[in-house]
């Protein structure tokens, strides 16, 4: 009986998730350009990746993006949630406003920000010259400033996600615990540090994991804003997978890169689950 209910999901799951995971691993051991039959090459794709100078750059870019974008998103998201939690009227409207970028298509967001970052006619540089910066960055056409621009947009787009989750977490903390803290002289920063943050830690844990995993998958922003340029300065792991698979038709090589993405995500998740009992408090 139960299996009848499960049948549609099982078929779809096996066809589009279960088998493909295994297949991706198998393909990563082959050389395959889609036109000729695949050839088994063992670990060659992986060794090539490690000797691939561009791949090294790609991993560096991705790491930089994650290390900058994730902490900013989490800290800002938490601060805004703490602020919003104190607002009494208009909380819903503010929450919707902060969340709009999250539901906006990344393509549209990337387009509008490309325009805002336009070197000669963009708003960002207009503001920078208004505050007296004589030679504002060339942003997307500068190999130095393209990545910071992408990071800024990612923070803008994803901030609301963490914030909404933090806000829900804050609203889950019981008032009577705050009352007890008031009687125990835990006020202001002390209350934040000793009561609010520890009780929020399950949410922080969750937000950290999904933000980290999401960040490793950055693609559309780079695709639209910089097309991975200039000179691969913003080429990231998923873009590299796409590029090798669907522009260079190196399915094996792209799959090997995808397996590395998978390994990173698995590693982060497992490490976090191991570490969580050191700092996450479940009520």
């Amino acid at each position, binding site marked *: 009986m139960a299996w009848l*209910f*499960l049948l549609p999901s099982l078929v779809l799951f096996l066809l589009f998730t279960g088998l493909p995971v295994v297949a991706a691993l198998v393909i990563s051991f082959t050389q395959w350009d889609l036109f000729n039959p695949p050839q088994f090459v063992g670990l060659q794709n992986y060794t090539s990746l490690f000797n691939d100078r561009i791949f090294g750059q790609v991993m560096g870019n991705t790491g930089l993006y994650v290390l900058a974008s994730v902490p900013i998103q989490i800290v800002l998201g938490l601060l805004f949630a703490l602020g919003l939690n104190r607002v009494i009227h208009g909380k819903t409207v503010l929450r919707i406003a902060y969340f709009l970028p999250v539901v906006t298509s990344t393509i549209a967001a990337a387009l509008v920000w490309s325009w805002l970052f336009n070197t000669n006619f963009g708003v960002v540089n207009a503001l920078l010259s208004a505050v007296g910066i004589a030679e504002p960055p060339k942003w997307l056409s500068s190999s130095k400033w393209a990545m910071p621009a992408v990071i800024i947009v990612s923070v803008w787009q994803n901030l609301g996600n963490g914030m909404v989750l933090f806000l829900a977490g804050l609203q889950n903390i019981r008032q009577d615990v705050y009352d007890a803290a008031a009687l125990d002289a835990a006020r202001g920063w002390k209350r934040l540090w000793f009561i609010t943050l520890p009780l929020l830690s399950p949410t922080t844990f969750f937000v950290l994991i999904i933000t980290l995993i999401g960040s490793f998958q950055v693609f559309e922003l780079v695709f*639209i804003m910089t097309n991975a340029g200039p000179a691969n300065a913003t080429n990231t792991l998923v873009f590299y997978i796409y590029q090798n698979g669907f522009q260079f038709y190196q399915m094996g090589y792209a799959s090997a890169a995808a397996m590395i993405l998978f390994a990173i995500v698995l590693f982060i998740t497992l490490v976090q689950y191991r570490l969580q009992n050191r700092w996450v408090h479940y009520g």
Partner: protein
Amino acid sequence: MARPTRHSAWDWVIFIALLAGVIITCAPFAWMISTAIKPNAEVFRFPPTLWVEAPLWDNFLRVFTVIPFGRAFANSLMVTGAITILQLIVCSMAAYAFACLQFRGREVLFLIYLAALMVPSQVTLIPNFLVVRNLGWIDTYQGLILPFAFSSFGTFLLRQYFKTIPRELIEASRLDGCSHWRIYLFIVLPLGKPALAALAIFAFVSQWNNFLWPLITTTKPEMQTVQIALSTLQGQFNTDWPLLMAGSVLATMPVLAVFILGNKAFISGLTAGSFGGK
């Protein structure tokens, strides 16, 4: 507790910070709309202005004539709508089995479904592409729809909600002679409406914005979705900013409307699934 005199300074700081946040968050939208209705003379003016002196609505019409944007819009509606409906059906059936039925291997299978949340979609991208290509589904609706008809996240979300339905209700219906299909259709689904609504909005928003999959599985302009059409527009008219912004406005409107109307359900779904993300 909250003595207004002591906290008012802080409250102002917070208020100003929140307001600044809202301005930064919403300014790009304002700029998107403003540029979309600017004549060229105003677009390339320095310093740029938000206010448009001579608004021009032509750009919205141009989007539909320079590329088959109307067709792309219809495709997106079709694909997103179909995925949303299929996810509701497939996930609710699976969730019903996990939440309300006893069977061997239930926990293991559920764990496997959950583990799938940790697999980045880019990992399965190439094998899925090969499957769809071998089935001859490149440039077809089924190729765009079926890979997303099931969602682990949706199953998890619905199962958590279905579990809160009192067991007695289901047992009482069993005693009244209801089959599992009847219980699923007439008890669990109606009671599960809030979770189904959350999933529907969630699925709609994320699928409307889906980009990578339609990028690699569509080649003909008439099968493109809105997001692909928008990136094509950028490829062909990369300095025609009013046109690009008009396209962006059009591509963004449906999700923003759905989100603003259903924001409560959406956010409750997001936070209830404190496990597994987009």
